[in-house]
């Protein structure tokens, strides 16, 4: 049992790609009902860390604890079996399928009957469950039978998040959930993240957008060159401090420098709300 009752805890995780050390001994944890923002410059190791947690990469060193128990994650299936779900940046949805089909993609419900190819999809049960899920999450879409390709980016991102919740996960990893979204759509997705927190999930949000991170997270974990460069409680932290940790500048460095060094997609940092 880890001392503080973390849902998911990583200890001293190292990941190398040949001579490149992408993660150089990182400790990271998420508690239930907590939203952790994972920030850092390009190449800081954010994606590597998330992919290590979701089982896509196997760490070279380090320990994993889930619910206090030591575990090993050797593939995406191990991660999802533990209850770790990942929502990828580029919206892993099929535009040509409707919402129900996307929500249940790969985990379709089938009617009782002869096994094998002939078994009929249980569309009624899937649609019913989709209504329930989207209603619980207060996700607003025109129809669960509408093609996902017909929807706005915000609606699609909400469907992608809802999809990750079908397996009843305990930890949800969100990779740049608001990267491609407009203001109103970003607000929808951030609201959804807050509702997930209320459900007691542990949530990790990767984002380049500090305004979003400050709005939705409880804690901000900064990676820099594959190492932890800061772990801030959102209350009582300014964006300047976080930017300084991201860029490695001395505290008090001008925030414009931080923004310029960041990803081109990054929006200009705003003051804390």
């Amino acid at each position: 049992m880890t001392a503080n009752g973390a849902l998911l805890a990583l200890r001293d995780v190292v990941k190398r790609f040949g001579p490149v050390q992408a993660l150089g001994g990182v400790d990271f944890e998420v508690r239930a009902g907590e939203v952790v923002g994972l920030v850092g410059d390009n190449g800081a190791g954010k994606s590597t860390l998330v992919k290590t947690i979701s089982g896509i990469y196997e760490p070279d060193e380090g320990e994993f604890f889930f619910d206090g128990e030591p575990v090993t994650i050797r593939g995406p299936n191990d991660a999802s079996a533990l209850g770790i779900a990942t929502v990828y940046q580029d919206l892993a949805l099929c535009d040509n399928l409707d919402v129900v089909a996307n929500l249940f993609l790969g985990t379709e419900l089938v009617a009782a009957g002869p096994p094998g190819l002939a078994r009929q999809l249980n569309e009624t049960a899937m649609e019913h469950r989709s209504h329930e899920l989207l209603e619980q999450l207060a996700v607003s879409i025109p129809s669960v039978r509408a093609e996902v390709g017909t929807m706005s980016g915000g609606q699609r991102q909400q469907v992608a998040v809802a999809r990750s919740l079908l397996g009843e996960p305990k930890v949800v990893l969100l990779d740049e959930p608001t990267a491609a979204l407009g203001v109103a759509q970003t607000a929808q997705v951030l609201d959804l993240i807050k509702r997930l927190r209320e459900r007691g999930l542990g949530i990790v949000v990767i984002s380049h957008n500090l305004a979003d991170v400050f709005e939705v997270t409880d804690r901000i974990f900064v990676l820099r060159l594959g190492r932890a460069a800061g772990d801030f409680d959102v209350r009582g932290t300014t964006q300047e401090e976080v930017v300084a940790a991201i860029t490695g500048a001395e505290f008090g460095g001008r925030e414009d420098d931080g923004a310029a060094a960041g990803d081109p997609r990054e929006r200009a940092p705003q003051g804390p709300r």
Partner: protein
Amino acid sequence: MTAHPPAAAPAPDALALERSPPGLVRRFTQGDLASLRVVVGLAVIWIIFEIQNDRFLSAVNLTNLMLQITATGLISVGVVYVLLLGEIDLSVGAVSGLAAAVMAVLNVKHGWNPYLAIVAGVLTGTAIGLAQGALFTRFGIPSFVVTLAGLLAWQGALLYVLGETGTINLTDPKITGLANTFYPPAVGWVFALVVIGAYAAGTLGGWRRRRAAGLADQQVGGLVVRLAVVAAAVLAVVAILNSDRGVPLAVLILIAFVAGMQYVAGRTRFGRHVFAVGGNAEAARRAAIRINRVRVAGFAIAGSMAAIGGILAASRLLAVNQSSGGSDLLLLAIAGPVIAGTSLFGGRGSVWSALLGALVIGSISNGMDLLALESSVKFMVTGAVLLAAVIIDAIARQQRQAAGRV
């Protein structure tokens, strides 16, 4: 279980909009109602040919038309699966010829039981499809190239299997009967009632299950109209066929495969995965769908259906020769579903399009034969229709994108 409040339930306004005249026009032009578009096009073609030659819509000619399209239609059923995957199979014509040759050689030269010979022919197609699918997925070679190589290789195999004579005449009544059996009228009517009954049971059963689950957003009126249209169409087809030689076995085979493979595509987990892989292979992979298995299965279906189509064609011709499965068969088998709304870009379409497309192409060919036009004109007109259909598909796609609907 309760009905769901508007939060997640389909908004009635949106549905009403979809059903309003402008909504219907939009769905018609943007491809949601692609099959209706094709039916209208087919009606126009029929009217034009009927005006030119009043034998076109006679029972004899319509029966001939149905017999002419069975082989192409069966091959197209498999092609639809490959197109849904976003791939192409250029070998289906050659495979159909080779499979028929394998059947013919085993039956005629080696005296195999006709049913065993047919099964061996079909399995030849399945094996070829599996092999091509495996090459495509294992080495990541574009399916276009793998199946183009197949096209050449299987044409060569056809010549090799046929041997020096180059032609094998089919005499076994079990095999020739496939395309030359006609059922008496009573059997036709029973068949019609069974089809209508099964369709009604399926539709109403689905509607009742949805209503029991509190999902009754389908209008009963719409269901009844659809049921009536289907019943009228089935009865009309059987009436026409009965007034000539009767319902042909070949047509039953075609319709059974179209309906069965439509069920697989639309109602089963495998079919859903085919659409998913064709729509967004990466999303399907992340959803733990074994996309390469789905792809190989799709090519196996294409090979199998090509073989079945080839066997029907041989049965109709009463022979297998060196040009079996050659000529324009391949291109027509691919053009048919595309004309009838199955996208070349993957993820959109239906198995019905195999039947509809074969009907369109078959009608054009049949009608121009009646008008005694030269084959030069036939090819050019068919090409123009294919081009028009693909342009309509591309425009529908552009409009969807313009409307933010990828």
